[in-house]
């Protein structure tokens, strides 16, 4: 449980109270509202795209506008709709499901949320600059580099995504810490509801999947603003590297969306089948395995690039492999339905449609794992159909299931079922009309992202059907909005548990009060509310689950570890870029190289300075634990001084290099060197600031032995910065791997 005082102590419903709120439920709702707003924006863009493509040789929008529309549609739907809405549900539901009062870090939660509209505004502000981004949602280089996109649209795209990325990672770290540290007594990790477990896995995935994007964004920004050439082949850069970095992020990102869908369906189907999930362990375990496997398949997005036969073969194999944990889950859900007392509520209908449509999207995905098929169909409308079957037919449908399922808990009112079913059927028809026919268009050779098409046989009709289908989806969405507005005013009062749900969120009032629970039922199985309501049939009587041993590590330390793992991946990607651009640099390098430009012994001395700061930190921590505050402050001051000395050494080195004309835009060695060491220097500076805050806190008496875990958390970061430097020094200065 939480070990801090509640951060919000009174109910208030004014606008200002929402803006200032740190309550996980309100922040969750704000995430969902923001996502809904951008759903309209991104949906409107989609409608414009479909309007343009409804008839051959249409000139409804200009080519430039069309490029901007599909770029912003993709970016918006991924970053401003998909991620926020799931984060919203995670924020609202996970703490309730695990019996927590709030998330581990409520203020960080608010910060994470507010980064998002900030990033969204930055992205859309690009319209006012006269050049919205138009290089596609994956902004392939060299199109996105300065020579080909000289206007600031891509810059807004980069900064917007970076800001949203920071929010996403901090939000995910919060969920990780909440699940590990804030579970109610009795709630062992193995007893967590599948939604909570899978959202935990999704948060882990966000923590490790955003950093590669951040590395790529940082490098592209340095290309564009500081004249480097990481991704400019004409100047020695490597455009394919962008694709690698982007898809190392981009493919796991698919699972950032798919996992929450699995999580939702794993709650909705059992409740409306009146059965526990079939094969809990498999669904939970396979979700963890997906996190790992999703990291090993990115290059299947690049089969057409020319990686070579063997990489293609290996990635085809791993891609087929990742279908297994997902594919078998389909059987889990189907087996849960088997023999159940099925209630075809709107939520259940959407969940069942998810199963069918997701299978179609999955099967076409397996087709793409076969390299020759990919070569034939890549960049056609078959791809568009495939991923929309996954993202819309699967994920958006599960999202609607979640909306109908948890709306009563969130608002206290039921959504209208008749309107819900009306919306469901409009969506089923509209969705399949829109994207089903695109499979055929793709097979007929229609490329994606084209602005106009000639009147080839069948293209007009199929495109028209697709556009009409898009219109139907828009109408279906308006029905949902109407349903929400109407139900908020006139909906049936929900009560605590209108669906007779199994998990803890249904044991509290709807909507839940501040701090969530008056009292919690005893947790002895995976369905505590079922156990309480049906004592004769309680799960724990028939199936034993691992007991909760009561261990809850300090949240600050857990979050520090999650953060450094995220940062480690960021640095690894930067170091990979260094190795890529500096292998064999002696043979054909022009300008300075590591061996000609760097003073290794001098930097070696400063390396020792930095490493010794880890030792002084360790001594300081030891003193703090023993409450020797005087010694603590002295050793902490030493640590800060050593950190400052290292930064001083770096400034000395930079000054020398710059005075020799070695600047970041000189050549690829200089670009990679300054990027890697510069980011490391920034991290050391951040560490020094954190240590200084600790020193000030200690001087004012806020830091004592009891709060030593907070200091230890800062230590995790500080030692990490040292470890990164060991890698940097070995690779850049000592030339390991070259």
């Amino acid at each position: 449980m939480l070990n801090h005082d509640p951060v919000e102590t009174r109910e208030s419903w004014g606008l200002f109270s929402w803006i200032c709120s740190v309550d996980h439920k309100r922040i969750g709702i704000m995430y969902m509202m923001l996502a809904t707003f951008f759903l309209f924006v991104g949906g409107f863009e989609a409608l414009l795209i479909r309007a343009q493509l409804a008839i051959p040789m249409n000139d409804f929008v200009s080519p430039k506008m069309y490029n901007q529309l599909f770029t912003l549609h993709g970016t918006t739907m991924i970053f401003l709709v998909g991620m926020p809405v799931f984060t919203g549900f995670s924020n609202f539901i996970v703490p309730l499901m695990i019996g927590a009062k709030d998330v581990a870090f409520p203020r960080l939660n608010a910060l994470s949320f507010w980064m998002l509209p900030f990033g969204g505004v930055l992205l859309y502000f690009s319209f006012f600059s006269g050049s919205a981004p138009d290089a596609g949602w994956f902004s392939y280089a060299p199109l996105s580099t300065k020579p080909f996109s000289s206007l600031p649209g891509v810059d807004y795209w980069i900064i917007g995504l970076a800001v949203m990325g920071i929010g996403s990672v901090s939000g995910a770290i919060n969920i990780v810490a909440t699940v590990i540290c804030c579970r109610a007594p009795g709630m062992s990790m193995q007893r967590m509801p599948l939604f909570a477990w899978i959202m935990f896995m999704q948060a882990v995935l966000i923590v490790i999947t955003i950093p590669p994007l951040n590395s790529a964004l940082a490098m592209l920004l340095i290309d564009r603003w500081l004249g480097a050439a990481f991704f400019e082949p004409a100047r020695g850069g490597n455009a394919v590297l962008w694709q690698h970095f982007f898809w190392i992020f981009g493919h796991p990102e698919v699972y950032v969306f798919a996992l929450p869908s699995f999580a939702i369906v794993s709650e909705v189907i059992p409740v409306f089948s009146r059965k526990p999930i079939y094969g809990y362990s498999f669904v939970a375990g396979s979700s963890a395995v997906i996190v790992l496997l999703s990291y090993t398949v990115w290059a299947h997005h690049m089969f057409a690039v020319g990686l070579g036969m063997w990489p293609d073969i290996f990635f085809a194999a791993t891609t087929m492999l990742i279908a297994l944990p997902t594919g078998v889950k389909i059987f889990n859900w189907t087996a849960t339905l088997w023999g159940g007392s099925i209630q075809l509520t709107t939520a259940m209908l959407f969940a069942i449609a998810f199963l069918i449509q997701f299978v179609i999207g999955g099967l076409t995905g397996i087709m793409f794992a076969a390299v020759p098929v990919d070569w034939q169909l890549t960049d056609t409308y078959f791809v568009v159909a495939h991923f929309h079957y996954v993202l819309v037919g699967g994920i958006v449908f599960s999202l609607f299931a979640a909306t109908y399922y948890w709306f009563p808990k969130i608002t206290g009112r039921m959504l209208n079922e008749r309107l819900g079913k009306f919306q469901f059927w409009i969506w089923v028809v509209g969705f399949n009309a829109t994207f089903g026919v695109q499979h055929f268009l793709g097979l007929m050779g229609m490329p994606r992202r084209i602005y106009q098409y000639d009147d080839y046989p069948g293209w007009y009709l199929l495109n028209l059907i697709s556009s009409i289908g898009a219109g139907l989806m828009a109408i279906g969405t308006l029905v949902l909005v109407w349903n929400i507005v109407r139900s908020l005013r006139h909906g049936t009062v929900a009560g605590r548990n209108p669906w007779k749900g199994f998990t803890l969120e249904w044991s509290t009032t709807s909507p839940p009060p501040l701090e969530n629970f008056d009292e919690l039922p005893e947790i002895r199985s995976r369905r505590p509310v079922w156990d309480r309501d049906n004592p004769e049939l309680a799960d724990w009587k028939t199936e034993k689950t691992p007991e909760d041993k009561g261990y809850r590590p300090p949240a600050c330390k857990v979050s520090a570890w999650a953060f450094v793992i995220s940062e480690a991946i960021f640095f690894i990607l930067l170091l990979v870029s260094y190795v890529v651009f500096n292998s064999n640099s002696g043979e054909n390098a022009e300008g300075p190289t590591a061996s000609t430009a760097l003073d290794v012994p001098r930097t070696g001395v400063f390396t020792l300075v930095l490493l010794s700061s880890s030792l002084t930190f360790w001594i300081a921590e030891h003193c703090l634990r023993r409450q020797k505050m005087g010694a603590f402050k002295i050793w902490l001051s030493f640590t800060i001084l050593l950190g400052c000395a290292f930064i001083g050494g770096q400034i000395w080195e930079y000054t020398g290099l710059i005075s020799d004309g070695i600047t970041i835009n000189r050549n690829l060695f200089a670009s990679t060197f300054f990027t890697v060491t510069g980011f490391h220097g920034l991290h050391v500076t951040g560490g020094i600031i954190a240590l200084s805050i600790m020193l000030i806190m200690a001087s004012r008496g806020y830091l004592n032995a009891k709060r030593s875990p907070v200091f230890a958390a800062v230590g995790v970061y500080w030692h990490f910065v040292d470890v990164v430097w060991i890698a940097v020094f070995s690779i850049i200065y000592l030339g390991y791997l070259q």
Partner: protein
Amino acid sequence: MIWTPELWHWMSPVWWVVGLILVVYFVMFRPIQPARLIALLLGLLFLSMAYVSPVGYLADGFIFSAHMVQHLLMLLVVPLCLLLSLPRKQPKRAADSSDKVPALKLIATIGWIGGVGAMWFWHVPSLCTLSTETFTVGLLRDTSFLLAGLIFWWPIYGPLERTRLEPPVGVLYLFTACLGCSLLGIYITFTSTVVCPVFATPADSLGILAQLQAAGLTPAVDQNIGGLLMWIPPCMLYTGAIISLLARWYTSVDHDHSTTTAARLT
């Protein structure tokens, strides 16, 4: 071609090692459990094949990817089989974190660094060449692989429950190890640097390389495959181990009652 007699090194000294392990096993671990004996025999089969079969011959300065297969067998597969062959000391009650040895963190850290570091260390170009050309350094390398593999797998599949990591920590251990070997694999796959120069210009005493190169296995492609072998199969093995850990975790309540087959073996 694989059956060419010259490619099989039937007189390899590895048989002495195999025999020694068998003797020690039969002396120390009686009564013998069939499942564990199968694990042992599999381990010994992989160990002997790493040297006796064409993998051993081709790894000796001919083909980089065969060299990589040999390393993976020695570092990951053989130690895993050997550990699984050891009788497990069952806890009297369900595992409890308080039962763990205090030095478990240290053991795991050494195991992780040993397992991942061994691969990185022996693929520094100069060391890779030296260990392939010099018998004693090669012996040192292979022994270090076996030992590193044993200490790497120990916190996951060691016979003592007290020295095994809690399954969630074990998952993290394997996940990060996968990242570690992936990075090396990615580097070897895509770098233009010749990672092990001795394989770039091998002496083709049997005339086999000409055939292989005619079939497309040029030194560059060979290194490409070697990198992919370093990258993907270990991660798949780790994924399998993660699945078994999760199975162990979810069935940890059942130690005294009914354990699954997987849990019994692991």
